[in-house]
């Protein structure tokens, strides 16, 4: 029973053994923790060493500085504006358009399967 629990998953061209991976990750975390303990421990609190650096801008209160959910990936969505414009036009929420897409795919698949 223990033997089947610890077997590795063999795909045709690779393998994966999660128990070995978990043991390896624990050992690596222990190593990282020990190495972190070799760092410097003394620093001056309440001076400029512990404040956040915002490129010279003043730091407001935390509630108004939190980035809202829809703005988190602004760079990504701004670059792909043309792709998102097409997708938003496709998803316009009209109930008859749902049936129209279904019929278009039915016609395309029928031509593909019927002619080959």
């Amino acid at each position, binding site marked *: 029973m223990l033997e089947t629990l610890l077997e590795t998953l063999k795909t045709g061209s690779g393998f994966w053994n999660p128990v070995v991976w978990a043991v390896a990750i624990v050992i690596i975390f222990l190593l990282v923790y020990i190495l972190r303990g070799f760092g410097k421990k003394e620093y001056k609190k309440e001076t400029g060493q512990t404040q956040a650096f915002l490129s010279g801008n003043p730091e407001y209160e935390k509630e108004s500085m939190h980035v809202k959910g829809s703005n988190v990936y602004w760079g990504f969505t701004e670059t792909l504006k043309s792709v998102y414009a097409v997708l938003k036009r496709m998803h316009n929420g*009209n*109930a*008859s358009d749902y049936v129209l897409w279904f019929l278009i795919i039915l016609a395309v698949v029928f031509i593909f399967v019927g002619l080959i």
Partner: protein
Amino acid sequence: MIFNIPFIAVVAMIFIGLFAVLFKRNLIKIVLGISIIESGVNLFLITLGYREGGVAPIYTSAPSDAITNTPGSMVLPVPQALTLTSIVIGVAVLALMLSLVMHIYKQYGTLNVRKIRRLKE
């Protein structure tokens, strides 16, 4: 059957129903379109069971050659059972759709399908 008119009627009803669902703006006309498609499919099921010169498939007055040579001179009975089931399902779906249309009218104030689009993108 003469020139396969029932099969042509089936295709015509399905296309008319799909036209109503795709291009009409009133929600109730969309529901009517679905009902026409359902009638077309039911007609298809009954038509495929027709045998030339057959009688209605009633068990107690089955013609004499129904056992030796099924179905004999009867029309096929199984598609009629399938059609009855489908008509009942169609009535239930129609009732549910119409009650949803009533609730939508109370909330949105309009029956135009192009304005009932709060869930988009």
